[in-house]
C-alpha cells in the first residue's frame, strides 16, 4: 500500500533549529557539510561558573540569548532546556507563510522529546533543599521547571495552543519518539497541527555525568540544541490549499531490543525499523538519496547503527550526513537535529538524481538502552 495517499500524509511545513552551528538550518547544513563550527566559548556560558570535565569537547549553541527571540519578560525561572525548546518553536512558527489563526489553537499542540527535562534545574532544586535554612524553603517559581513537560507546556502557554501537549523521553531516540507520536496523533485526528521536536541542554551537570559514565567514545564531544518542526496533515480541514511543504514524514518506526541480546540484535532491530518504514512509505532502498545518521557516541554504537542500515538498504549506499561528528553527542535533540540537517540539505538545492531517486531521505538512531528508530522523509516537489 502506498503511504503517500492523502489519508496517511503528514507534511512538515516549517522548522526552527539551534545547534553548535548557530541559528537556523543553513548554518547547520554548512557546518555538517564542511565540518567547521563557529568559534565558541568552550561552553563557558552553559557551564555557568562550574568546572568543565577534563577531556570532553563542549559544543554549546554559541551566544545563546533567549531574550533576542522571546522578549525580556518571564524568562528568569526558565531553564536552558525550556528556552532552547521555546526558541526553536518560535523560529519554526516564524517561518510559516501563514501563522496559525486563533480558531486553530484548539487543534494545535506540542510534542517534545526530552529525556530528563533540565538535569541542571532538577539537580539545583534538590541542592537548594539540602542547603536552605529549612528543606522546604526552595523556590516555588522554579518547581514546575523540574518536570519533563515544562518546555512543551511553556510553548503552549506562549501561543495559547490548547491541543494535546506531550513530552516523550527516549534517550537518543527521543525526537524520533516524538515524531512518531505526533504523526500518529495527526493521522488519528487528535490534532491538526503539532509543533514537534527534541531538545537537549549542555550544563556542568550533564557534562560531568557523561564524562563519569564514560559513554562518549574515543573523541568525546558533547553538544546541545533543539529543533522543532511544524507538522500538519495534508488536509487539515480548514480548506486551505496545501502549500509550503518542506517534506512529508512518510513513516516513523521505533523499536526495542533488550541489551542482553547483544549488539547484533540491536542492529537487526534497526534494520527492521528501516524496512518497516520503507514498506509503510512505499519506498525502495534504492529510492533513498541521503541518510542523516545519529551514530550515537558510545563505543561501538555507530557501527551498530551503520550495520543495521546496511542490512536494510541491501547494498544501496546513499550519501550520509554525519551530524553527530560535527555537533557532538546531543542526546534527546539528536534525531531532531538530524532531521533539520536533512531538510537543510534539501533546501540547499542538492540536485535530485535522475528518475526520482534522492527524493527520499532517512533518519536513523540507536540509543544506549536498546531502543532504535528510523524516520522516512520524502522531499516535497516544491522544494527541489
Amino acid at each position: 500500500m502506498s503511504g503517500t495517499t492523502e489519508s496517511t500524509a503528514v507534511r512538515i511545513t516549517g522548522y526552527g533549529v539551534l545547534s553548535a552551528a548557530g541559528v537556523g538550518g543553513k548554518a547547520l547544513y554548512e557546518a555538517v557539510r564542511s565540518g567547521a563550527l563557529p568559534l565558541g566559548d568552550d561552553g563557558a556560558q552553559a557551564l555557568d561558573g562550574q568546572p568543565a570535565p577534563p577531556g570532553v569537547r563542549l559544543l554549546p549553541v554559541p551566544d545563546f540569548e533567549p531574550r533576542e527571540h522571546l522578549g525580556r519578560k518571564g524568562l528568569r525561572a526558565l531553564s536552558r532546556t525550556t528556552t532552547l525548546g521555546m526558541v526553536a518553536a518560535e523560529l519554526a512558527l516564524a517561518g510559516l507563510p501563514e501563522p496559525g489563526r486563533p480558531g486553530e489553537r484548539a487543534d494545535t499542540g506540542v510534542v517534545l522529546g526530552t529525556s530528563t527535562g533540565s538535569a541542571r534545574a532538577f539537580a539545583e532544586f534538590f541542592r537548594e533543599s539540602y542547603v536552605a535554612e529549612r528543606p522546604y524553603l526552595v523556590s516555588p517559581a522554579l518547581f514546575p521547571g523540574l518536570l519533563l513537560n515544562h518546555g512543551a507546556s511553556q510553548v503552549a502557554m506562549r501561543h495559547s495552543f490548547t491541543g494535546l501537549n506531550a513530552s516523550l523521553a527516549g534517550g537518543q531516540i527521543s525526537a524520533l519518539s516524538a515524531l512518531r507520536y505526533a504523526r500518529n496523533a495527526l493521522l488519528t485526528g487528535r490534532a491538526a497541527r503539532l509543533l514537534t521536536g527534541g531538545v537537549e541542554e549542555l550544563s556542568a551537570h550533564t557534562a560531568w555525568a557523561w564524562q563519569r559514565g564514560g559513554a562518549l567514545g574515543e573523541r568525546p564531544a558533547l553538544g546541545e540544541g533543539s529543533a522543532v518542526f511544524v507538522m500538519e496533515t495534508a488536509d487539515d480541514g480548514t480548506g486551505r490549499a496545501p502549500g509550503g511543504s518542506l517534506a512529508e514524514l512518510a513513516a516513523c518506526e521505533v523499536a526495542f531490543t533488550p541489551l542482553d541480546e547483544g549488539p547484533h540484535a540491536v542492529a537487526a532491530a534497526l534494520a527492521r525499523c528501516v524496512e518497516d518504514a520503507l514498506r509503510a512509505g512505499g519506498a525502495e532502498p534504492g529510492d533513498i538519496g541521503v541518510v542523516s545518521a545519529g551514530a550515537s557516541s558510545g563505543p561501538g554504537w555507530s557501527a551498530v547503527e551503520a550495520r543495521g542500515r546496511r542490512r536494510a538498504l541491501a547494498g544501496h549506499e546513499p550519501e550520509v550526513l554525519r551530524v553527530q561528528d560535527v555537533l557532538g553527542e546531543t542526546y534527546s535533540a539528536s534525531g531532531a537535529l538530524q532531521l533539520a540537517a536533512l531538510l537543510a540539505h534539501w533546501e540547499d538545492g542538492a540536485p535530485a538524481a535522475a528518475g526520482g531517486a534522492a527524493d527520499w531521505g532517512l533518519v536513523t538512531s540507536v540509543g544506549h538502552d536498546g531502543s532504535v528508530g528510523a524516520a522516512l522523509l520524502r522531499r516535497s516537489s516544491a522544494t527541489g
Partner: protein
Amino acid sequence: MSEQGLRRVAVTGLGAVSSLGTGIEAFTAAVREGRSGITDISSFDSTGFRHTRAGEVHGFRPQDHLERLPAEKWGRSSQFAAAAARLAVRDAGWDTDALSAARAGSAMGTTNGEARAFQELTEQWLAQGIGGIDGDLAARASADRIAAAVNTELGLRGEAQTFGTACSASNYAIGYGFDLIRSGAADVMIAGGADAVNRATHAGFHRLGAIAPDLCRPFDEDRGGIMTAEGGAALVLESWDSAVSRGARIYAEVLGYGLTCDAKHPTQPDRDGIAECIRRAHRDAGVKPDDVDYVCAHGTGTAANDSTEVAAVREVFGDRIPPISSIKSMLGHTMGAASGFGALACCAALYEGFLPPTATVRSVDPALGPDLDCVPGRARPARPRIVENHGFAFGGNNAIVMLGRPE
C-alpha cells in the same frame, strides 16, 4: 476519521506495586476497604520538614517479582514499572515467550523520572564536588529507562515509550497504547506509569503549601492538601480478538480518551481546559454525559483542584453529576503513576462491581455545591457500565480515559 477497520481494545491484565499492596488483588481489596497507605517518610531524611508523611512502598524487593531485569542496575521508578508490568502480564495469563514474539511494546508515564537517582547524585555533588558523581548512577537517571525497563523485563521488541507529561502521563500512555492497538500498529501494549517519593518533589509541594499534615482528604471542607506518594501501575492492553482467542479474562474495554492543554498557568488547573478534555473524551468514546456512571477524580486534595475539577464536571454533566471519588485519599498522589492507578481502580470496579471510595472525607465541602456524591468511607456495591478516569498535571496537561464494562 474513518471508523472502519478500527479494532476494539481490551484490558486483560492489571499490575500494581503500591503503598496499599502489591498485585491487583491486594490493591483492590485495600481500595474496597478504604485502607490508607500513608506512613511516616523513611526514604529520605525528613528532618526540618513540617509535614513528614507520604505514601511510600515499604519493603519493596524487586527481585521477588522480576524474572529478567537485573534490578541493581536500574533506578527505583524503573523497578516499580518493571515489577508492575510483570505482575500485569502474569495476571493476563500471557506466556512470556509468546508475548515476546507478539507485536508488543510499552508506554509508561512519569512525572519525575528517576528522581531518586538525581537525589543521590546531588548528595554526591554536595559531598565531593561535581566531579565526584558516580557515572553508573548518572547513567540510570534518564526517564526513558522506565519504559526500557518494562521492555527489557518482558523481552518486548515493539516500542518502549516513556511519557513525561507529569501527573497525567499514565493516561497519555494508555491513550497512546489504545491508538496503536486500535489501528493495528501493535497487538499488545503494556501501559501505565511509575514514580518514586523523593526530597525535591516533597519540598516543592511543601513550599507551595500543598502538603497535608496527616492524610489526604479530597472534597473535605477541612482538606489539607496532597500526600506525595510512589508506586508502579501497569495494564495489559490487547486487541479484543486476541483477548477472546486466548480465552483471557477481560476486565474492561478502553472506549476512548481526550487530551487538552490549558495553556494558561504553570501550576493552577483551569475549568475550561478540563471541561473541554471531558467533552473530547466523551466524543472519542462515543458516549454522552448521561451514560457515565462514575468519575475517578484527579482529586489531589487541594482546594484549587477540588473546586476546579468539580466545576468542570458540573459544566459538562449539568444537573446530574455521577458519583465522583478520589483514590488519592488512600494512596496519596503517586504523580506520573496516578492516572495509572486510577485506571486500575476503574477496571477493578467495572469487573467486580463497585465504586471506589473517597476513604478520608468526613464532611463534604459545601462550597463544591449540592448533591456531590464522593462515595465516602468504603467502596459501594454498584454495577457501573461506563467510567471516566481523570488525570491532570502541572503545565495544564489534561488527559481523560473512558473505560467500559466488557460486553
